[in-house]
């Protein structure tokens, strides 16, 4: 079947993530990827691109690793699934591995198939934990404005109620606090430290306002991975130190969402490793398996998990595809390669190089505003260089996207910000390639 046929079938039958099929059609799409290796992908017209965002900042290892395909095939040929109430070898090895690379006593692992399910499960575990401790009233969840934690009913209301307003009445118990992003528009020229202290104090204020007896958990990404129209920098370490302390003082569980940050993205195994604190529950997805197969996991402190032991304390939840042996085998191999090829250090080193290059680029282009991020989770904002307060229009956004694609860069942009989350195997030469293409596009604009 040729690609035009496929495109017309797609526009008739396929419903893609957050995409209008009429829009796709107008753009002569959707683009169909037929080959993918490392940081490069090729479409059905033969155009090759750098995937600057590695899928959804998720293909950490890069595309096309035959070792992963091989272990998946071997596992499927041994046992492709499992009977109820039983398990398989690769899953046991995976949970042991996850326990060994996560901080402290984060040792009890509930496997799921994606980030939304992981965060849903984390919240259920937190609520059920309080019920088991006789505190049934603790159901509210504190999240930070602008954060994203998933698309299903229990997590889509976290971070922002208005983005999902068309999906009905909000799930009760959502409490919002400020995002501790030092580059936030809400930060009126405070130092990173002072702003972090303000934001952490706000969490405590909200706990007291709602009464600590009603708060189940705080959920947060260690470093927020995307903000609408904003570039993100890591919060000062004081934010996380205070947050841990506040949660401990009020008996609130701390859930760290490492779905994007985990597995080397920020130059450490986990984003929270930058801050030296231990969450009660950690959620992972994406990078845990570099999107070779769907997988996510909830990693729980022993003392929290132990509330579910004995008597009638069972955690009642089943997901058909949780604990899939082929996904587990893929994730194990993925982690093994990240370790063997030292890709976490690579993300730190090449990420710093990338950041410096972006700063150099800013000296040449007035259109670049803020630059921020850490490891291979970076971003820049685009500003109207003639009049700082005037925002860039849609026409500009369209021209920018068109030119980036013509230069061979696929990346995430809303026209006001550009995000980078490439495979963490990327090298400095490839960064130079991205920078020079970006340079060219910005000059043309």
């Amino acid at each position, binding site marked *: 079947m040729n690609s035009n046929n496929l495109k017309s079938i*797609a526009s*008739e*039958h396929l*419903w893609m993530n*957050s995409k*209008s099929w*009429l*829009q796709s059609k107008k753009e002569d799409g959707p*683009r*169909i*990827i*037929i080959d*993918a290796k490392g940081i490069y*992908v090729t479409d059905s017209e033969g155009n090759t691109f750098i995937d600057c965002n590695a899928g*959804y900042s998720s*293909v950490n290892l890069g595309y096309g690793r035959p070792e992963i*395909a*091989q272990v*998946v*095939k071997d596992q*499927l040929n*041994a*046992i*492709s*699934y*499992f*009977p*109820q*109430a*039983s*398990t398989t070898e690769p899953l*046991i*090895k995976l949970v042991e591995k996850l326990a060994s690379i996560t901080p402290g006593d984060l040792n009890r*692992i509930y*496997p799921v198939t*994606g*980030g939304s*399910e992981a965060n849903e499960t984390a919240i*259920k575990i937190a609520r059920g934990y309080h*019920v088991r401790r006789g505190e049934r009233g603790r159901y509210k969840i504190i999240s930070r404005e602008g954060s994203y934690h998933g*698309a299903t*009913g229990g997590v889509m209301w976290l971070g922002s109620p208005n983005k999902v307003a*068309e*999906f009905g009445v909000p*799930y*009760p118990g959502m409490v919002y606090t400020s995002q501790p992003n030092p580059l936030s528009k809400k930060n009126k020229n405070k130092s990173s430290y002072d702003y972090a202290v303000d934001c952490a104090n706000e969490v405590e204020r909200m706990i007291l306002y709602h009464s600590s007896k009603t708060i189940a958990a705080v959920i947060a990404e260690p470093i927020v991975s995307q903000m609408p129209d904003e570039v993100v920098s890591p919060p000062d370490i004081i934010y996380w130190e205070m947050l841990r302390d506040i949660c401990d003082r009020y008996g609130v569980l701390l859930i760290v969402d490492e779905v994007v940050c985990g597995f080397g993205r920020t130059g450490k195994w986990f984003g929270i490793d930058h801050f030296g604190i231990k969450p009660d529950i950690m959620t992972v997805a*994406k990078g845990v398996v570099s*999107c070779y197969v*769907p997988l996510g996991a909830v990693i729980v402190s022993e003392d929290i998990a132990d509330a579910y032991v*004995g008597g009638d*304390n069972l955690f*009642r939840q*089943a*997901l*058909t*595809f*949780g*604990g899939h042996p082929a*996904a587990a085998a893929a994730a194990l191999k993925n982690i093994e390669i990240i370790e063997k090829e030292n890709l976490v250090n690579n993300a730190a080193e090449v990420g710093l190089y990338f950041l410096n290059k972006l700063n150099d680029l800013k000296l040449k282009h007035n259109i670049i505003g803020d630059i921020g991020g850490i490891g291979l989770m970076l971003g820049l904002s685009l500003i109207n260089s003639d009049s700082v307060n005037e925002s860039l229009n849609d026409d500009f956004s369209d021209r920018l996207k068109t030119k980036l694609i013509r230069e061979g860069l*696929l990346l995430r942009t809303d026209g006001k910000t550009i995000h980078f989350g490439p495979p963490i195997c990327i090298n400095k030469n490839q960064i130079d390639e991205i920078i020079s293409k970006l340079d060219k596009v910005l000059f043309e604009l």
Partner: protein
Amino acid sequence: MSNELREKALKYLWMQNRDWSQMAEIGDPPIFVKGEGIRVTDTEGNTYIDVNAGYNSVNVGYGRSDIAEEIYKQMLEVNYFPQGTTTKPTIQLAKKLSDLTPGDLSRVFPVSGGSEANETALKIARAYHVKNGDINRNKIISRRGSYHGTTAGVLWLGGGPPVASRDDFEPMYPNMLHAPQPNLYRCEFNSLDNSECAIKSANAVEDLIKFHGPDTIAAVIAEPIAIPQGAVVPGDEYWPMLREICDKYGVLLIADEVICGFGRTGKMFAMEHWGIVPDIMTVAKGIISSYLPLAATIVRKEIADKFADEDNYLKHTLTNSGHPVSAAAALKNIEILENENIIDNSANMGKYLKEQLEVLKSDHQIIGDVRGIGLLVAFEIVSDRKTKSIFSPDLSIPDRLTEKFFKHGLIFRVSNEILNIGPPLSITRSEIDEIVHAIDLSLWEIEGELGLPVND
């Protein structure tokens, strides 16, 4: 080696619906290393029949190397895709599902499991009404005793016995309404025939809509044949009436085919038994026989088209939506279902299984009812056929049955008095005989232990 693995599992793994301290006491969990057809083999070399095919999900059976090969090839070619792009197998799967599903169900949103598929269906239904200007159509009607998933947006659908209590996870999601289940054996209206129970159950849905006001109701969601209460096949009046009621009041009808779909009931989709086209259909499990995670939400053209243009697109993103490797596996799986006559086999073997269970029922007083269609069959254990009452929980009948079945070579996990049988659809007559024989022996043993009178 296997003891070491078991220790690690007990230390680090949080298994579905299992308590590691209780598993430690009984030498669990079993660890399986090999699967072939309907059989699985553990680390000690013991082989068992997996009576429920995973979670009624391994429809083509274990050990299909052709699916493994397809997955391998696709993973080498394109293992994933950049944001905003797609891949060949995902497009081909969307087309295939549009072709297979009834009526104008033709727009496919791929996801990675049944919970996500139902969550997506509800989001589409609610946003559809908002786009129509019906901003108050937000309530969802489901049936007591049903199950539609475990994430918060779908966890509160259905519920009630025999579904596990949700009281650990309060608060309840807003705007959930619950209607009776058209389950003749335990009909809420005490109906004596299936038609009457079906008609009264459907009328109850209409009453709920009228009570709350039609302009507040977004959708009705239901399994064509409900599983938790044990393969409940409604009277033939039920689905046509439900379709009519939904049309009358502008309510969307969502059919959850997560278990029923892909041949489980002897047809490709269970809705085909009544020739009814739902507005949205959700599928998972059998679509890929659990070789990898995959599910989908399939929407009628006129509903989906509300979301077609740039100003109205559905704001919904799941990283694993449209995964090319899962799509390739599903395409192969569907090809096997079609080429190897597996769906006809499901109809025929299901009929045979049900007949054999009816024979067991005549021998065992503790079987209260046998029902189902295709290879979705169930029977209920009762202490008294007349009152349909169940044994005291103190007797731990479900756990004891699970143990007996295991001893007789079956993995057949029982969690309440309703026993669902949903094996791979590739099962043969002699394999069914093996299962029925093991059930027969297990029931004799239980009856002996309970000191029950034995039929001759």
